[in-house]
């Protein structure tokens, strides 16, 4: 990320519409809270997927996961720039200030875990962006404009995750076993996806129903068992939107922020 802002009529690097002297740079306005939540989802998942570069099972997957990460990073930059300086937000916030769902910070694990995490998240993001993009262009908020743009990219991410879910679930005994293990293991993080975000005009019940139908169809076709019970009923994971994160998130942030904190303003 570079800090060269070019905002006609705006304050370079500043918070658009931010209140002078506001220590949070306008982050507490509802529209900004929404941009921060969606921007953090994209940023954290981009960082996770970037960890695969050079380690994926085959070259095409190295390229695919890096491309998906790049799309997400682009979304994150646009969304976070709506709130404040993107570099400041990415590199200088503490763990409790991030508003991403806990699903995206979960470790890559084996390839199956990455793919199932991708399935759960990309189906959600495509539906969410699709609803946001549904308004008339002249009514579009900046977040809706980004959603209308990014929903087409997300469709490719979802397709990628679906194809791999089918191959892993309906593949060998070992790939099926591992896919099922992570389908069950990550299920508890999916309830949080449907926690309403202030500032977004979304039918959350409809989003949850559509998500469940879509994910169920893919899992069943992949011969995987759909976990029973509502998401998070036994042990309700979630709280990421309120700044509560799981243990692996701290290590992810350390890697993400280390260079910038050690060498402030470092650039290529």
């Amino acid at each position, binding site marked *: *990320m*570079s*800090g*060269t*802002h*070019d*905002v*006609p*009529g*705006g304050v370079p690097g500043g918070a*658009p519409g931010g209140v002078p002297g506001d220590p949070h740079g306008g982050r507490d306005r509802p529209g900004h809270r929404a941009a921060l939540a969606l921007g953090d989802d994209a940023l954290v998942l981009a960082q996770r997927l970037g960890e695969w570069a050079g380690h994926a099972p085959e070259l*095409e*997957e190295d*390229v*695919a996961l*890096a*491309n*998906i990460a*790049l*799309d*997400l*990073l*682009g*979304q994150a*930059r*646009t969304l976070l*720039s709506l709130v404040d300086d*993107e570099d400041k937000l990415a590199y200088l916030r503490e763990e409790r200030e991030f508003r991403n769902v806990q699903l995206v910070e979960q470790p890559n694990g084996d390839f199956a875990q990455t793919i199932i995490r991708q399935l759960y998240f990309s189906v959600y993001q495509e539906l969410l962006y699709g609803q946001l993009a549904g308004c008339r*262009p002249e009514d*579009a908020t*900046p977040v809706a*404009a*980004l959603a*209308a*743009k*990014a929903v*087409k*990219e997300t469709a*490719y991410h979802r*397709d*990628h995750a679906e194809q791999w879910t089918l191959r892993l679930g309906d593949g060998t005994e070992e790939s099926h076993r591992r896919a099922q293990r992570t389908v069950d293991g990550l299920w508890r993080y999916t309830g949080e996806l449907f926690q309403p975000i202030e500032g977004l005009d979304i039918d959350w019940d409809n989003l949850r129903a559509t998500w469940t139908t879509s994910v169920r169809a893919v899992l069943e076709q992949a011969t995987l068992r759909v976990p029973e019970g509502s998401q998070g009923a036994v042990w309700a994971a979630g709280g990421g939107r309120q700044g509560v994160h799981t243990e692996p998130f701290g290590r992810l942030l350390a890697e993400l922020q280390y260079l910038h904190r050690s060498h402030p303003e470092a650039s290529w």
Partner: protein
Amino acid sequence: MVTDTPLVPDAAAPGEAPTPLEAELLRLAGSVPDPELPQLSLADLGVVRAAHQHPDGRVEIALTPTYTGCPAVETMAEDIRRVLAEHGHPDAAVHTVLSPPWTTDDITAEGRRKLAESGIAPPRPGGPAPGGGPVPLTLAVRCPNCGSTETELLSRFSSTACKALRRCVSCREPFDHFKELL
């Protein structure tokens, strides 16, 4: 990052014909080669949206990214500023607009020809024919090397965000396909 606040081009309000200067600015900005596909100009790619001269003389160009995360956007903006500076507009501003989203249908016929010529299968056209013509068939992706329509998908993602990797079943050559974004 090059961003904008309103996300709608305040340059050139819809329906307002560009002034001769603005048309010239559009031509100059459009003549800049794409940083990753230098055989195409930004005009071929359809990413230069508008040019505007403010009453106080300031000049502004609206640019739209192909993909949200396209790393070439910043280079494009720099190149446009440089070309405009060389033509007497030293302080031109370039800002990005997202709405309406760019689609592969914004690539001109000339752009498609140049893509195919350089070994990249162009994106297939999308949307119904203007005037409500027949429902379009899903066309095969043609091999840019031998012209065969027998090609297969290797990966949905390739050397850049905008391309997929395919292979020709006839001549066995792998090739990039500028994938559809509609």
